[in-house]
């Protein structure tokens, strides 16, 4: 599967409060509405400026903080193709895979705001078309690939009636 889109660059330590802030707690049962505010506290205009299929590109420890699954949910609903970061916080990492939001761990230093990216999932390669460079992604653990391939954890359990992961 090849995915193409533009890079939106963020820094280190983008928290779930940046992605889906607590002051919008009341919108958690209305995810399409909450998604209109995705990443608002990191970049107030991001939701308006981004296009469906774009990539969020960040530094270390993306998604730290609260366990709120609403954070990966709103990124997915907003149409973010994948999040590329040098590292991810643990709970966010699980949550994203569970709901079918693609995460790519890679060196994002070589990606600038607005670069055109092409992600080749099977090969684990990110092509930066603007810079004419290629970046290798860290492979996901097998367990998580199985969950992603089944369309998320709920779908995996629906399919097998139990965990069929290890």
């Amino acid at each position: 599967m090849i995915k193409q889109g533009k890079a939106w660059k963020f820094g280190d330590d983008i928290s779930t409060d940046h992605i889906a802030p607590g002051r919008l707690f009341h919108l958690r049962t209305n995810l399409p509405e909450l998604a209109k505010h995705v990443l608002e506290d990191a970049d107030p205009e991001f939701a308006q400026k981004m296009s469906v299929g774009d990539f969020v590109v960040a530094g270390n420890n993306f998604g730290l903080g609260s366990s709120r699954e609403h954070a990966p949910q709103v990124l997915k609903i907003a149409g973010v193709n994948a999040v590329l970061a040098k590292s991810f916080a643990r709970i966010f990492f699980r949550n994203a895979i569970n709901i079918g939001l693609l995460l790519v761990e890679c060196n994002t230093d070589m990606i600038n705001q607005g670069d055109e990216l092409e992600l080749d999932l099977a090969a684990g390669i990110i092509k930066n078309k603007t810079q004419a460079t290629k970046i290798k992604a860290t492979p996901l653990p097998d367990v998580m690939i199985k969950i992603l391939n089944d369309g998320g954890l709920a779908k995996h359990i629906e399919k097998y009636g139990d965990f069929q992961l290890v």
Partner: protein
Amino acid sequence: MGKTIAEKIIGEHSGKKVTAGEFVVANVDVTAVQDGTGPLTIQEIQKINLEQAKNPSRTILFIDHAAPSPRKELSNAHKILRDFAKKTGAILSEVGEGVCHQRLVEDFVNPGEILVGADSHTCTSGALGAFATGMGSTDVGIAIALGKTWLKVPETFKIDVHGSFQQGVYAKDLILHLIGLIGADGATYKALEFTGETIRKMPMTDRFCLSNMAVEAGGKAGLIASDEITRQYLISRGRGDKFRPIDSDPDAVYERVINIDASKLEPTVSCPHTVDNTKLARELNDVKVDQVFIGSCTNGRIEDLRIAANILKGKKVHKDVRLLVVPASREIFIQASREGLLEIFAEAGGAINTPGCGPCVGVHAGILGDDEVCLATQNRNFQGRMGNPKGYIYLSSPATAAFSALRGKISDPREVLVK
């Protein structure tokens, strides 16, 4: 080869000997959600026709983040939890009962058990010698429905603490110091095991404070061996029969060992907007505070309130400071009332609020104005955390918070405590 606490507990729950790095499916003893994550949990398992609780008497739904509800959308979210409890027999912890992590240690979690909770600070219960970890709504939903989850057995960092705290220095200063040392992602995916003579002498309230903040270094769990202090705590909670000793083996394999001399620590403060941005309280004397919050699952226990009340007794908070006090649970509220602590806070000019998360989550009860500064005893100071991305949050111990409320600026509590 010896085992860590994480390896032992996860091994017991997956029916085999396990080693760090392995992936397993493990049985779960206790599951928990709160009003921010629970509605989505229930919706996710409804979608796949799994709206059930495998162990209803050990499935707890907490209404603590927005309690009492400040808006109709949240009132309706609370109804989803109440309906699920009625349908499945799961336990509901209502408005005013307290913040989930405090309620979990008070009445629900025992040594050697696995708890998964849809809240990142679920690691608090690790202080009881339980493997307790935070996950998202779907993971916990499946754990509620099936009584199990998948886990990667984490590598462990041993945090070996020796020496006694100076007067005015507390467990909160230790954990802030540690996070400052290793960074907000210093222990990502890892279990922390707190050990050493300082921990072995430490009362449960301080152990809870340490375990609570393991996630602020990225940790998956904050584990402490269960011992006589744990046993006495469980007896005091009517669960003495649930005690069992849980400890790592002397030859357990650790990924990293960090030694800390508690006697060298000073009152420590996390500065905006990350918990690892730590400085000493005495270096921050020019930071004026608009709001001081004493409470939360980190530092809203009776011992915390006593420390704060001791500093505030017979005094008034600075004229430019709002003091908010939120006992972590109803029982703590009642105890604080019996001891006259609530009166001390009120007379000092404080506002006392419903047991629960209080202003820490930014939903209600103390949202910051633009450019305002809050010094809080909570665990997190991210941008926007207290409801306004233009606010500034500093984190400290209850003693630093209380003394700073009197001074109107961040102040080292040793000034008043060390005579």
